[in-house]
């Protein structure tokens, strides 16, 4: 139960501490100053176009899902329906993967979330010389490790698997 509370808390913390980011760009700016968030940077030995193509292929299949979490103790019952929405935006300067999360039941938002849900992770891929790509990620510092690992696998091309979103938290 505490674990689920922590997940919900983390996902709406940005909204509670600052104005809820309504766009991916607002999310990028909010993360560095928010609690329980992190930025992560690494390079991969693949071109940005290949990284973008993998995002386009895998993100809809892996992240366009809904998860129901039910927890029960002798004194409480919690039922949360969570929908995830991935968006891939590819431009000349970078490829972006946005992951949004919307708790349809079981969570009260302190302010209106953006269309599609609160932003939980934004991953940007920037081209580097030598057919390499720099990845810049923004998101929660805890509870979403499998999502970060999946994005890294897609970026490197080493693992095209999907994150088990039931394990969030």
């Amino acid at each position, binding site marked *: *139960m*505490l*674990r*689920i509370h922590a997940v919900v808390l983390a996902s709406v913390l940005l909204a509670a501490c600052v104005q809820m980011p309504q766009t991916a760009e607002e999310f990028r700016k909010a993360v560095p100053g928010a609690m329980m968030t992190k930025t992560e940077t690494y390079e991969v030995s693949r071109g940005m176009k290949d990284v973008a193509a993998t995002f386009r292929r895998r993100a809809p*299949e892996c992240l366009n*899902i*809904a*998860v*129901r*979490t*039910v*927890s*029960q*103790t002798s004194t409480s019952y919690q039922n949360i*329906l969570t929908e995830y929405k991935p968006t891939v935006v590819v431009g000349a300067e970078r490829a972006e993967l946005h992951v949004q999360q919307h708790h349809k039941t079981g969570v009260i938002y302190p302010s209106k979330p953006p269309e599609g849900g609160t932003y939980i992770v934004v991953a940007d891929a920037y081209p580097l010389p030598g057919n390499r790509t720099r990845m810049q990620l923004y998101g929660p510092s805890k509870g979403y*490790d*499998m999502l970060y*690992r*999946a994005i890294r*696998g897609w970026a490197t091309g080493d*693992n*095209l*698997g*999907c*994150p*088990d*979103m*039931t*394990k969030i938290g």
Partner: protein
Amino acid sequence: MKAVLAGALVLLAGCGGLKTYPEDAAPKNLTVRTAASGVRAELDIHSVDAQCRAPYVGTVKLNKPAVAVGIPADGWSYLKFDFASSSFLRGSHQMSKGTLLRTRAGHSYDAEVTYKDDIYNVVIREKPPRGAAREVPLLDLASCQK
């Protein structure tokens, strides 16, 4: 603290009663190769009729590196790969990945199923009697209506 259920919504209704998929359902045309750690992997098999109804037929436990299954040829089936785990601290979890599969007579099918470090993958390839195998796109049940 006792989490009793955390599951994906892709679970189909009406499959509460688990039963073993019949060994003699059809000639073996699907080989499921599984490499899963930390979870129990199972395959639920549903037949799919012309109205896109998908009654549950049975379950195959994916507890061996390779399992051969017979899926009736020349028709649609719905295959649901389940990855379940449970522990006292983390409760119970089940992630499912389902796909429609149209099996064709004379063809064989190979499913590669992996789960490691909370990352899962399902890849299905179709092998014609002659020629190279091709990867089959995974289709959710809703696409049956289209």
